[in-house]
């Protein structure tokens, strides 16, 4: 996945498209809200010279994920496609992966999921609802991949680029997000990943994230005190 921060307007459509697609429960408690796709805001400078930067943050789908290493039961693992999967029926809820993920992309179900009655009818039947006590996170809309693959198989052909994109990419009104096969040297994402604007979050940790950001302005983690 490639996210062009120079195009991103910070509108959060991706955040809410994700919530609707993946049956994310509605929570009133801010520090327990689940948000597989989150919009991080970095405020730089002091008034009147203030600049705000936005970073949409899905799961990085690391090639060397620190979270899968520590899982005691194999409930989170890196699958053959390179996606980091979560098996809700295996997870024991120890939250070791949530503590180990340097990107803090893993979420825990502190209580049973709930939705306002009006929303129940529009829940996505392709995505399971997660019970209380298990960890979840962005899957790059894995259920869409499964569907696309079945479709391709039914039509007797290989999976084609563009057969499947995650909900966040599909919904981005600014066309700031791209999705494709990073192993394919001719794909758009591979081309963009080679751009001089490209960087990845916390690259120095060696996690090899598969989410690539583009920005004219040099990225650095904000200093805190």
């Amino acid at each position, binding site marked *: 996945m490639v996210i062009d921060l120079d195009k991103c307007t910070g509108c959060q459509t991706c955040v809410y498209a994700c919530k609707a697609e993946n049956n994310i429960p509605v929570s009133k*408690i801010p*520090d*327990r*809200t689940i948000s597989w796709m989150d919009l*991080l*805001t*970095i405020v730089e400078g002091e008034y009147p010279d203030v600049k705000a930067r936005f*970073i949409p*943050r899905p799961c990085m789908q690391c090639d060397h994920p*620190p979270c899968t*290493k*520590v*899982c*005691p*039961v*194999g409930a989170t693992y890196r699958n053959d496609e390179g996606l980091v999967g979560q098996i809700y029926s*295996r*997870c*024991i*809820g*120890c*939250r*070791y992966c*949530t*503590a*180990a993920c*340097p*990107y*803090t992309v893993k*979420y*825990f*179900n*502190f*209580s*049973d999921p709930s939705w306002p009655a009006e929303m129940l009818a529009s829940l996505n039947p392709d995505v399971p609802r997660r019970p*209380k*006590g*298990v*960890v979840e996170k962005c899957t790059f809309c894995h259920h869409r991949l499964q569907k696309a693959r079945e479709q391709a198989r039914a039509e007797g052909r290989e999976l084609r680029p563009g057969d499947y994109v995650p909900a966040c990419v599909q919904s981005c009104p600014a066309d700031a997000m791209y999705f494709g096969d990073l192993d394919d040297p001719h794909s758009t994402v591979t081309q963009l990943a080679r751009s001089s604007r490209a960087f990845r*979050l*916390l690259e120095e*940790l060696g996690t090899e994230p598969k989410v690539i950001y583009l920005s004219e302005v040099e990225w650095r*983690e*904000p*200093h*805190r*005190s």
Partner: protein
Amino acid sequence: MSHTEADFLRREEDAALFRPILVTGRSFWIAVSVLAAIVLLGVYAYTQQLRDGLSVTGLNRPVFWGFYITNFVFFIGISHAGTLISAILRLCQAEWRRAITRSAEVITVLVLFFGVGNIIIDLGRPDRAIFVLQHGRFESPLLWDVTSISVYLTASTIYLYLPLIPDLALLRDHAGKRRRFYQLLALGWTGSPRQHRLLERGVAIMAVLVIPIAVSVHTVVSWVFAMTIQPMWHSTIFGPYFVAGAIFSGIAALIIAMAVIRRVYHLEDYLKPVHFNHLGILLLVMTLLWLYFTFAEHLTSYYGAEPAHMAVFWTKVSGSYAPAFWSMVAFCFVIPFVLLANPRTRTVKGTVIASLSVTIGMWLERFTIVVPTLMNPRLPYERGSYTPTWVEGAIMAACFAAFILLYVLFTKFFPIVSIWEIKEGRAKAVEETTERIRSYLPAGRPAAVENLLRGSFR
């Protein structure tokens, strides 16, 4: 108490050691009721958590771990009181160990259940805890914990049981109650020389085995944190730091337990000021070691000044966790150091105050290791915070109460001071020790001196 029991107690030299088992007073029932009430409150709190999930705790994102994980590390630390200290004292042939090994070993075995228990309480899906055995992955440090702690629990239980056998035989023959129970556990002990030889060999082997196991246990507990790449967890010093901290808090717990036993069961003749003095000196050494480790750990982070590390560092040193951090320094170093370095305050009372201080301080240490790192994720999120709820408080109180309750019950079924080892010490130790000391010293006129003298005068 029946007539024969009273008779036996009158005749028996070490009657005071049998008395807690044979005589039960009102204070025992009061203590048990209070402790049981606290345990029940904790059980009620846990049912709330089972019903509503971890939403009843103060945990949140990003502070996914709080009181329960702190207690896990703390209790496993306390477990180093017993087996390790007892094993080291046995191997060093420290004669003053005789009265204290049992009370130490019991702490280990009982407190381990609460260490493991807190991990299970912390799980979002405790019903799936068995998955750790069914689908365990050894790449996860949690599996190292499971393995290491199970081995430790087994070894410590054997190490507690072996030296208990002769005492069980004494109870079988003299207690006049629960005869079948003691008979079963005493395994037909008659006290023959062959049985003694076997027992001594068994205890010696266990004492050696248990030391590396104990060291491994707290090392892998620290590795749960150190193996991640999170700021101020990912530290090579954590293994030894945690082991030292465990022995530190373990000695403190032992001193407190001994003082209570001494007071409640009137064992002043067995647990003497000299025992508290010796353990106090050990505690003093550990106080200094703790300061050294803590200083080394924090200076390294500070000097390196990586922003992600500094966020955690400042949370501890001057931020919202500064009160906890600096009280930890006071409780773990200032108070015990002042009390223990001065021989005049290294009394029973002084060592107990120092130990209470260390126990509180070490809990705070675990707490300030677990939470501030989680509060400060590397990416620009809002900073986290953590306020525990009554559920977490009640469950924590229940863990402490249940541990004390089991300990009290143990003293009602088994002698908390090893009777046969005291008797053996009285019968043989003076002679053996004199002989040993003699073997350290040079003989009247060694051959080398003899030769030298001869040579120079030739």
